[in-house]
């Protein structure tokens, strides 16, 4: 199988809420300089799903990332993907990509995928931890005119098709889609990303990775970056989390538990 995986770099979603600040005038989210950057967690699940398919059926994995920050940092993620077992990695970088939304991003990624040529599957994460839109996978499919599915947690390769598990509210579906197709991957206990081996890390470090500009993609300038966006950000604000927790402290954990039950009972919560 020939698989393309789209990954995005995001600020570690596990940093505490108190690290967030917004610059309302510049409409920018400000984070501490040392806030760690990671591969978007759902994209790691997508990469792992691709690696498992490659383990089973062989083939090739190409990882693509559209840089939304200095390319050097994003290259680190692409190399991490190579170290985990991907075969090729391509960075899309151009100032013209800036200020985009899901429409611009899906278009640029679709152009890159077209340029790559033959493939059986495109995998994306369900949603990215920064803007939480959850649209790009489906957008790539629409741009390429390909079938797609979301909330996929397991994929089996078939002949001219793939079979998959798709989570629904009260269970799951088993679906078959013809290939090529685009799947958005959700989290599952079997999709925890593998750890890169040292040999892989060393090998990946030495690789020179191709960087494609908007021109290299032959992208229509009116469909990338701000020009291609269909939504405009107007305002950013911090939500108010006004918690005031009453800590129940007994002499022992057991006594705390007993006091909690009393408290919940007198408050008529139970």
């Amino acid at each position: 199988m020939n698989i393309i995986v789209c990954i995005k770099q995001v600020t570690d979603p596990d940093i505490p809420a108190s690290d967030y600040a917004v610059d309302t005038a510049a409409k920018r989210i400000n984070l501490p300089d040392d806030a760690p950057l990671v591969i978007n967690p759902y994209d790691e699940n997508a990469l792992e799903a691709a690696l498992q398919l490659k383990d089973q059926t062989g083939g090739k994995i190409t990882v693509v990332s559209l840089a939304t920050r200095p390319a050097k940092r994003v290259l680190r993620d692409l190399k991490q993907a190579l170290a985990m077992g991907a075969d090729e990695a391509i960075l899309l970088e151009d100032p013209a990509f800036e200020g985009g939304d899901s429409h611009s991003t899906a278009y640029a990624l679709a152009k890159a995928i077209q340029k790559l040529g033959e493939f059986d599957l495109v995998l994306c994460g369900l949603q990215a931890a920064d803007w939480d839109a959850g649209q790009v996978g489906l957008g790539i499919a629409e741009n390429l005119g390909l079938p797609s599915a979301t909330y996929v947690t397991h994929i089996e390769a078939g002949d001219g098709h793939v079979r998959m598990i798709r989570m629904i509210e009260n269970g799951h579906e088993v679906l078959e889609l013809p290939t090529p197709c685009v799947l958005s991957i959700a989290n599952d206990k079997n999709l925890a990303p593998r750890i890169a081996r040292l040999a892989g890390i060393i090998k990946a470090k030495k690789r020179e990775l191709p960087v494609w500009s908007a021109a290299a993609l032959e992208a229509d300038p009116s469909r990338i970056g701000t020009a291609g966006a269909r939504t405009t950000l107007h305002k950013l604000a911090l939500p108010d989390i006004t918690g005031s927790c009453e800590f129940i402290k007994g002499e022992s954990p057991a006594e705390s538990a007993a006091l909690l039950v009393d408290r919940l009972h007198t408050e008529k919560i139970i």
Partner: protein
Amino acid sequence: MMDNKADPKGILAVGEITAGTLSPISLELLGMGQKLAQARGEELSVVLIDRQAENCAQEAIAHGADRVYLITDAPADQYEGASCTAILENLCTQTIKPAVVLFGQTVTGRDLAPRLAFRLKAGLVTDCLHLDIDPDSRNLIATKPVSGGNVLATYSLQEGVPQMASLRHRAFDAPEPDAHRQGEVLPLPAGVDASAVQAKLMEKVLEETSEGPTLETAEIVVSGGRGLDDLEEFDKYITKGLAEVLGAAVGATRGAVDGGLQPEQHQIGLTGKIVGPKLYIAVGVSGAIQHMAGCSGAKNIVAINIDENAQIFRFAKFGIVGSYKEVLPTLIEKLKELELS
């Protein structure tokens, strides 16, 4: 001809039917849709794509719909992304030209709304908490949580194409039904045939319905996180422990799901279910903002966590700092006693 030049007009809500009635999020959508329709001085339509759509038409009108489109002959028996997109594309470009299209942020809405938005080259803001109409431009203004919920972002959307948004469950109260409301019911042909279906449904597996209430309707939800050691512990302390004695539904964090402690369908949060019980008890849950997105509508949150600095305590009304292994046995025992008294 005239029609094609006409300005987009009216609000269209895409409703969902579960177990023969409008799903709760669809009722909320009708409430929000009616508010937006009034602000634009226009009507609210709802489209129902379902074999049983007819049975829900009056319910939709009672909750705020001025017009109900019924599509009962879709080529797939249940939701299928490609064919539903084709049906809605026809509806939005040929039958009516809505100015605003609304979805619920459900498993179906997450799949369908982006497909339609890209098909129509329309802007879409997903998972919104607030929707408004700008009084000057009459355009949709949509506010959604970003960065997991650490920040709120407000967007405007491109004009000339439908302005689309999906609404988070429980962000807006469902309106009280008014049985006397009048509305129009219009059956429509799907206008697409079996060739529009792309995904072949091989099997549908519904989770075994446990004895307890569902997450959706439960008065009490007990959730476990990665703080629980393993599956046995989760089962013993949460599912067969605290949840059972309280008659509560069982929830989980992504951490717990990834660790195999619970199936994904129990995940609460940004990409899981949104619950709004009277009491939410979080055990071994750190309180990541993405998790809290699914339970901050709970009336009372109780947290049990070994780390006194855990973020969950910022959201909790009552908290105990301690290990679940030491706190829960007594908690369960005392609750049993209370039950008997």
